[in-house]
């Protein structure tokens, strides 16, 4: 319980997340994955709006790792590529993702309510 609270406090320090970081964390939320698979998932989820070119992709993974948001794993036993590194979310990473999701949700709520209030005036 204490640990979770400390994580939440640390997580707040990472907000707001850059879109690229958010999407990478989101891609890893489902379980461990490698760089290229992360790229494909981000691209299909954003319908091509965010394309992760290699240097940004691996650079971001490095940053997230050194910030302690993700961890490298040994990966599946059978891998088709010896180069591949596999990553999963760390506890901190999970907290950061949750906190960012809450922040975005609050923003969306706020935005919706403002628009519905201002709508009649538009005519």
């Amino acid at each position: 319980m204490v640990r979770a609270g400390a994580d939440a406090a640390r997580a707040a320090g990472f907000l707001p997340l850059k879109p690229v970081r958010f999407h990478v964390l989101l891609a890893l939320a489902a379980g461990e994955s490698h760089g290229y698979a992360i790229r494909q998932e981000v691209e299909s989820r954003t319908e091509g709006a965010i394309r992760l070119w290699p240097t940004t992709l691996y650079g971001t993974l490095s940053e997230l790792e050194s910030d302690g948001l993700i961890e490298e794993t040994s990966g599946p036993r059978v891998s088709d590529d010896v180069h591949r590194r596999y990553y999963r979310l760390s506890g901190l990473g999970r907290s950061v993702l949750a906190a960012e999701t809450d922040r975005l949700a609050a923003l969306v709520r706020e935005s919706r309510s403002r628009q519905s209030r201002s709508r009649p005036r538009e005519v």
Partner: protein
Amino acid sequence: MSDRVRLAVRVFAVLHWLLPARYRRRHGAESVSAFERMAQESLSRSGTAGLVRSLVSASLDLLSRVPAEHGAARRAESIGATRGSGGLMRRMDGLRSGIAQDVRYALRRLRREPGFAIFAALIIGLGIGANTAVFSVMSPLLIRSLPFREPERLVWVSNVGRGGLSSVTSRTSNLRDFRELNRTFESLTGYFAFFDYGSYTLVGTGEPERLVGVGIAQDFLDVLGVAPRLGRGFVDEESVWGGRAAAILTHDFWVRRFNARPDMVGQSITLNGAPTEVVRVLPSTFDFASTFTPASHIDFLLPFPISDETDNWGNTLAMVGRLRPGVTVAEAQADLDRVITQLQRDDPNRWGLGARVTGLRDHIAGEHRSAMLLLAAAAAAVMLVACANLSNLLLARGRTRSKEMAVRSALGAERRRLLRQLTIESLGLALAGGVVGVAVAWLIIGAVAQTSSVSIPMLRTVSMDGAVLLFALGITLVTGLLTGLAPVLQVWRGREAAAMRENSRSVTESRRSTTIREALVVGEMAAACVLLVGSGLLIRSFLRVLEVDLGYTPSGTVSWRVDTTRPFENAQGHVAYYDALTRRISELPGVESVGLTDAPPLGRNRQWGIRVLGVDYPDGQPSAFPRLVDRGYLEAMQIPLRSGRHFLPSDNAASRKVVILNQTAARALFPGQDALGRTVIIIGQEWEVIGIAGDVRHQALEEASGSEMYLPFTQLWEGGSPAFTLVVRSGLPLPSLVANVRGALRELDPSMATGDHQTLDAVVDQAISPRRFVLVILGGFAATALLLAALGIYAVLSYTVSQRIPEIGVRMALGESAAHVRWRIVRRTLGLALLGVVIGATLSAALTRLLQSMLFGVAPADPVTFGAMAALLLVVSAIAGFLPARRASATDPVAALRFS
């Protein structure tokens, strides 16, 4: 994997070397293999274009991450190390990572707006390209030191006359005496300036070839300090009258004819039938022709004896000296004046004494200096227009940017930081422009170095060297700072707070920034106007030069150098040989007329004394340009005979000597009298004037003819085999005429080199080449400036119109007609353009005086040119303004009102 994908992957992999080792070790292989899959997908989805797009995007992505990755690597390495070190280190580190962040941010912005980035790079690139190219052309002439040892000590010593080559060259006895009596020169030397009168035919392997060789004094290359590429200099036995034949090959000739064989030194070649030893090859850095006699070509150097025999030839030597250390040109001049006074006192009858000392570089740059400076000024004007244009674009973006700046500033970014950000952005644009500019300059320089027909010195040595690249870099940085100035000033004045308050939609652009932008456009217009007026005046001068009455008709005429190596026993043999030659050529089908001369117009020149029998000339003997011709020459050139008769076959060595004068000579020698039948003294002999011919522009198209005299070559043979130029007039197409004449010449004299022919039109063309060279470059600059100024005015008005759509909507809703809206905007355009033209014309009126020396037949304040260029500018501006005006008048008032 397809070859295309493999190539793209390789390029991407190579770029990884820009990233820190830490990244490469950890992610390099995976990153490259990820790119390979992306590249394959792109190729199969959208073909090569898709592949290229992927490569460009991935490369830009990599480049934009370079600073961040290096920062991360440094932090990882020095994580405990910097903790204990001093504040300065930490601040430096902070600065570095801050700049890295700014660079990354700038790159990201540019990537997001590729259209803007490309447009800006092109604009800046044109300016930088123009300046870099001009710098490289003027660099060998005015900036780079001459390719000699301590070139600042080298001087040119000419004679003091005006006119032909004879009046600026010296007798070899002058050189001997100057050498002996001077106190300021370390050494004095020279070359035979009339080398073009003689020529050499190389026989041996391949076709006989006519070559040009220049005689040099024994120590000529040592005085200049030209190190040999291979071999040795001329020795004493080779440098005396009738000495052993030897030759020094120029680098070009050595490469062209002998495939750069290193064993040529020591070999013997056959020149004019005599075995000649090749003693040396010149280095490629020393191009004799391009340095001393531009637009000619020289194949080898020969020893030129400084002896009594060559002294008898009169003024023939071009002198070069090396001053003692610390001696100035003025001191050397005073010294030679003293020597000349002494020599004249010792021998009052001595003629041809005189010396004018100029720095060698000044001599070589000579008349071209002003043209080069003009081009430099024009290039600078283009640069200013380009900068103004880009500033304008940046300012237009500034409105959106100023909101971003306001937000960043509100979030705590220091003003210094924002300024750095903006500066780095404009530097980034300028660097991209620099790359384009270097490419543009590279193309121009390549074209310039290829031209051999332009008689501007050192043009062939123009190249893209370190100095040129450094210049390009310097001008790029200056441009970056200059164009960034306007947006930076905007932030500096604290406009971000105001921007924050502004409502993003309804506010129109503030008056101040509109004024700045319109002022920039007016400035562009003014600069374009100056360039247009300048090139307009040069164009009119050029046309005037083309209209000049040459005194002969060049079109339809081809000239050949005909040099026979055949020795002649006597004058009859000599005359018979050339009679047979001209008769054979005139019998060819399609040939209308044939003539011979030793000095065709716009080529060689020399002067001989001439006086009227029984007249004294206390103010000095008059002189005239002699032309040795045959009896068909005047007709072949279509030089009109004003009175008297042509030469006849009976005018031979045995008969009375006869001469035809031109009108200027006849007027000068016999003012108010009839010259026909009178006797003149030329080279100590009596000649009867039998005809008066029309004047010919012989020295330059811009110069009126001097006194000329035509002498029949049949009466002047002094032994040897003098070189002639054969002039053939024919209506035949050039290739068939050339083939026919060459065939006939070879039949007559198999050892004659027949490749050296030129149409007289080409000769005229070469004479106007420096004028055209300057004109083409300046015209190009003016056109570029006009285009940029038009783009500038278009951009400003488009932007203003887009800002005023709501206002226009209101006006139209209140009943203003579309035509009136259009007219209002075009009027605004014309107002700006007119202001630019007025300022530009005023500047031009002040500046065109500097052009005076390059104008011909046109006044610097030529109203036609000024009027035409002002009209051109106004028309182009009206067109540039009409497009946004049409868009504005098409505004739908209802939509515009709803929008607001």
